[in-house]
């Protein structure tokens, strides 16, 4: 009996062990190396120093670039969510067979090399591409104009790359919303907009927050997109980090910048994660107040 209880007690740690090892190998150790490198300005064998951090703080450039990067990623993540929300909701209400076919179509760009995606967007956004043709038609752009080589092109690319992921995350959350709940709300007189506002949106909010976090992280670290499409003013912190790690052969400064980006990303994710529960508390307080008033 005791043996069985002991085994039962060990089951969870044993099952968690492979994942814990993977996390240790792929996250904790690389992160520790990154921190160590950031203090090894004179090389891995030399005494530790704060030189890389001093250099980072000495120039306002890097703080500004970090903010610009987080702003770009944040805007791109919000646009992605705004575009993905409706298709994800529609998908969650479709019959399984049709839904699976559409999901398959959505997943194809996600499985395609991001370089191919970048070059396909290049054609779409180019002066002779369909987007600029449409803008010209409605008088928003002149001949030969293009949003290529601007920070806007980078945002468009980030949205395009991450849209399938956002749709999947939202879809998986929305799929759990029972049709009967909506039918019940309808039978009690709630209109379509009211049902979306009071049932669908609050119930899909956790998925929305998860989706925002999941797409925001890779967007914050993007650098190839801005390198190819972003033009002279499209540089992001990821580009500087990549250059420091390769061309400048300064892994210490690159590591310090990476940690700055990581810190900024964590702070923003923390803020976003607080929004969902805060909204839920607000709604709960209002409901309680309404019930009391009634």
């Amino acid at each position, binding site marked *: 009996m005791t043996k069985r209880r002991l085994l039962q007690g060990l089951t969870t740690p044993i099952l968690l062990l492979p994942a814990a090892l993977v996390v240790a190998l792929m996250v904790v150790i690389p992160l520790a190396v990154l921190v160590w490198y950031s203090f090894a300005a004179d090389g891995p064998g030399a005494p530790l120093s704060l030189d890389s951090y001093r250099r980072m703080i000495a120039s306002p450039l890097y703080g500004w670039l970090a903010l610009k990067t987080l702003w770009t990623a944040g805007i791109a993540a919000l646009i992605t969510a705004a575009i993905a929300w409706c298709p994800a909701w529609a998908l969650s209400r479709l019959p399984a067979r049709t839904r699976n076919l559409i999901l398959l179509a959505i997943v194809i760009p996600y499985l395609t090399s991001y370089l191919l995606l970048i070059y396909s967007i290049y054609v779409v956004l180019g*002066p002779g591409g369909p987007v600029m043709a449409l803008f010209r038609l409605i008088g928003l752009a002149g001949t030969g104009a293009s949003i290529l*080589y601007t920070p806007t092109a980078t945002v468009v690319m980030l949205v395009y790359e991450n849209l399938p992921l956002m749709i999947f995350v939202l879809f998986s959350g929305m799929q759990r919303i029972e049709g009967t709940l909506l039918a019940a709300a309808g039978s009690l007189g709630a209109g379509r907009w009211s049902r979306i506002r009071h049932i669908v949106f609050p119930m899909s909010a956790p998925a929305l927050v998860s989706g925002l976090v999941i797409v925001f992280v890779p967007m914050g670290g993007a650098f190839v997109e801005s390198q190819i499409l972003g*033009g*002279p003013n499209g*540089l992001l912190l990821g580009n500087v980090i990549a250059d420091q790690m*390769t061309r400048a*052969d*300064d892994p210490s400064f690159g590591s310090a910048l990476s940690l700055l980006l990581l810190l900024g990303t964590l702070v923003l994710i923390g803020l976003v994660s607080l929004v969902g529960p805060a909204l839920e508390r607000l709604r709960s307080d209002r409901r309680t107040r309404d019930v009391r008033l009634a």
Partner: protein
Amino acid sequence: MLMTRRSILAAGALMAMPGLARAQTGAFKGKTLTVASWQNYGADDPATLKMFTDMTGATVKNVFFTSEDGLLQMLRQGGLGQIDVCLPNLQYVLPGAQQSLFAAIDTAKVMTWKDLEPRFADDPSIRLDGKVYATPWVQGATSLAVNPTAFPTPPKSWKVLWEPSSQGKVGFFDDPTTAIMTAALYLGENPQKPDLERVRTALLDLKKNVKLFWSSGDDWNKAYTTGAITMGNLWSGLAGTLKTNGTAVDFVFPDDGTVVWGDTWAIVKDAPNLDLAYAWINFVTSPAYFVQWITKPGSNQQLAVPVNQQAIKALPQAASDKLMAGRLVGYRGKVALQAGLSAADLKRWTQLWEEVKAS
């Protein structure tokens, strides 16, 4: 068939190879030479590798790096004693030698040494403490390219990139040494030791006109052929290829000077096959090798001009024109050779360039 001076030389060079092969086949049979290079850049071309195997009996194992720093890192982290020869850019020879990653080269064992362009063979940046650490291999210019429709009379100075009328029309190579040397030439400064604050101001001014910082030939091609840019700095080999393929482009060696790069072969310290490494360097710097690489279909064969003057002579005229070899070798203006920077200077220049781009 019309026999030209070039084709006779090429044939002669090829005929000379079997003799060398017979002399060396026995010595290297069964050995494997480990070569560190860029992918698709002459050292991994199957046809040329077959030539080397036929010649020496040895096989080649390719290992690839994706940046010059990556090469030095590869050597530092276990490459010594494993890799025989590697392909550093001219400006990385000195840092590599200073870090004791390369072995000194006995130029008497490099049969092509006497034919190498003196500009490279005599360059101090391949030397440390009186010893030679690399054999110059290929070269190219990163010079001014303009669209002839926009410029019926080609400009003669880098100044054109800084003109207010050039706003939003410039494609500029995203490379610190090229950028700083180009700005130094424009300012009339010494490109090897410019006043970095003047250069910074000039590059910040230039940035206002830049549409694209390009980092690959494909970046340039797309922007140029769609009309997004009409001028900029460009590799000579790429300009020649564009012209040959029917794209209208004028490639200018400005009066204020041009930037020239070079790639070299170095023997790695503690190379397991030292004699075979020399055989490789003799092979890849030979006219026969260049005729094979540059004239037969393959990757990137149109980008680089041999440093071996006999190899240039051996090339068919069309191939030589495509590379702009004659114009490059014959250029007598000011040359900013991308070489000789200390590791500290290279870091400082890279930092400056990053700051300009981020501003």
